[in-house]
């Protein structure tokens, strides 16, 4: 979050010219670009769920690997921020490691794995299990921002549909699922209605996470780098997962619990243990799982406390 120090930094001329060595600006992007992105964020916040176009830049990571989220984070970061980066809910997945390293290198900000300590959390595919506060910003990486894309490939059409609130096709699609399969088969990237107006893609988070978006005190911003769109859910905004009266929205459930921390109220990853197909479930949110284990909780497959904390 932008603090006084950064204002000063900007006043001092920000980027200067990029030379061929390591002459990159704080958090990589030049100040002009950051301002452009912040303007797009403000627009997105002012119109919840609306996809604001922005002049996305090439980043030193490939498109589809979080360039939208990275640009948002780069323009939101101030020197006092504490950054957490997760992918699939975990801090130690390769892409999360790489993005965290990028910001450590280009911004020198403090990073953390603890959800509660972070002021900015960049995520791919998950919302942390621990409830977020009003002091935090959740930055989502988005591959395809347009929820209507699979029904209508043309941008001109979909923008018109949003403008006219013409969302019939989406309901028809969900209804067809029910007619064909007896239930809505969409399990992630499950469309939501934001602030009673715009249908929005929550990014490919499992629908398990959808309810966490509703009324969330943290600002949620979404960046699609390749598609050059930013959208947002301001704090305390209603986010409703689309459903029907006779087929209400429901989330994933597991019969078991986390093998390590024993939690029966977190999103679980399935792990195949051997060729015989034996499997176990563990929390996808690595920080949540760690915190529970540290607090003394233990699941049926937990290793003795000392071995579990070792770096494999």
């Amino acid at each position: 979050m932008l603090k006084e120090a950064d204002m000063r930094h900007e006043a001092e001329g920000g980027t200067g010219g990029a030379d061929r060595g390591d002459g990159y600006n704080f958090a990589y992007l030049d100040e002009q670009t950051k301002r452009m992105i912040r303007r797009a964020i403000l627009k997105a916040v002012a119109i919840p769920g609306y996809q604001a176009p922005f002049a996305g830049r090439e980043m030193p990571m490939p498109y589809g690997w979080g360039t939208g989220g990275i640009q948002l984070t780069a323009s939101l970061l101030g020197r006092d921020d504490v950054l957490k980066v997760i992918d699939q809910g975990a801090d130690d997945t390769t892409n999360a490691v790489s993005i965290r390293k990028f910001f450590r290198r280009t911004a020198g900000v403090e990073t953390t794995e603890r959800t509660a300590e972070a002021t900015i959390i960049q995520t791919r595919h998950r919302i942390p299990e621990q409830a977020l506060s009003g002091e935090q910003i959740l930055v989502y990486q988005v591959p395809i921002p347009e929820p209507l894309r699979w029904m209508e490939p043309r941008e001109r059409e979909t923008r018109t549909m949003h403008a006219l609130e013409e969302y019939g096709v989406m309901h028809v699609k969900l209804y067809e699922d029910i007619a064909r399969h007896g239930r809505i088969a969409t399990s992630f990237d499950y469309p939501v209605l934001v602030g009673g107006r715009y249908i929005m893609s929550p990014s490919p988070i499992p629908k398990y996470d959808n309810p966490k978006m509703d009324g969330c005190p943290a600002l949620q911003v979404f960046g699609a780098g390749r598609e050059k769109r930013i959208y947002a859910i301001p704090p305390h905004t209603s986010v409703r997962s689309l459903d029907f009266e006779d087929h209400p929205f429901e989330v994933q459930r597991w019969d078991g619990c986390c093998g390590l921390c024993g939690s029966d109220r977190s999103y679980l990853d399935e792990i195949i243990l051997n060729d015989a197909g034996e499997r176990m479930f563990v929390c996808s949110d690595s920080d949540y799982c760690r915190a529970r284990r540290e607090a003394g909780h233990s699941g049926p497959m937990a290793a003795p406390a000392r071995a579990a904390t070792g770096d494999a």
Partner: protein
Amino acid sequence: MYVAVKGGERAIDEAHKLLDKERRGDPATPEMGVGQIREQLGLAVDRIMCEGSLYDPELAALALKQAQGDVVEAVFLLRAYRTTLPRLAASLPVETEEMDVRRRISASFKDLPGGQVLGPTFDYTHRLLDFGLLGGERAADLPDAPAPDASGAEEEGGGNRLSGIASLLAREGLAEASEDDGSVPGDLTRDPLVYPADRSLRLQALARGDEGFVLSMGYSTQRGFGSGHPFAGEIRMGGVEVEIAPEELGFPVALGEITLTECQMLFKDTGDAVRPPQFARGYGLAFGRCERKAMAMALVDRALRVQEFGDAVKGPAQDQEFVLSHCDNVEASGFVQHLKLPHHVDFQAELESLRRLRASRESRKDDAAKGEEAC
């Protein structure tokens, strides 16, 4: 006993070391210098500058070295660098009519003022591997440049300035004239692309677009998925001066020379109430010696002018959302390859969903079986 997978950071560092090692190859072979790449792999360097949309042969050569010869990766490196550069000024439009021509051919006329200048081209080579190059440099690798007057291009002094085909035909009104309507061309590196995109934006996207993609799109228009029969009116390659006109000076200052390849494709247009019968034009322009790219771009440019000419829509090359949204190889390569990233959370969601669907299908079957028994 299960211990959660950890250790991504060290694995990444080690992977980078391996990559470095692979890049260097066998240390017994001499290391390639960036200068050697720039001078001896010039066409790759040109393509990287073109799609990287940054004219800097040295950095393009560096990118190619760093990318181990992977051109798309090198384009990406150059783009990622380009994006950090401040924009100091916009140049004046370059005058390709004033080009110091090193190659200029027309397929539409047997001869034309200034003549056909073949220049350096693969066109009439026999594609036979030259095993002589295996053994290193030969005397024949360093030919004397042909005398300038041998090409017949240098006339009336003043370099190789040749009138373009478009202006030659425009005198008779037979080719679409180029008009400056004074509008400021768009810039998709500064503003998000919104559809419909005007011609300046389309040309910009095509110029940065992947050569393979643009080539195939252009090719498709020749095979019935597009618009009419093209003639290569003119292809020219050579140096042009880049100038800026700083406001405080009030006159233009030359910054230097860059090599460009330009292509004017001609398409017969029988005209209508508004347009007289004439040749419509498709335009291609590329950094360096990128002739294939410039030609393909010109074909696609014309195909995308579908509304202007009221063409029947027959193929994807005429659909600007299809072409412009998919021509950028940095975007395409990134998104295709992001499938390598872990997706296990969504996969888990799908597993759960499939299991439920299977369970309800089973129970429906059971119900149906019971129903039949009951009958």
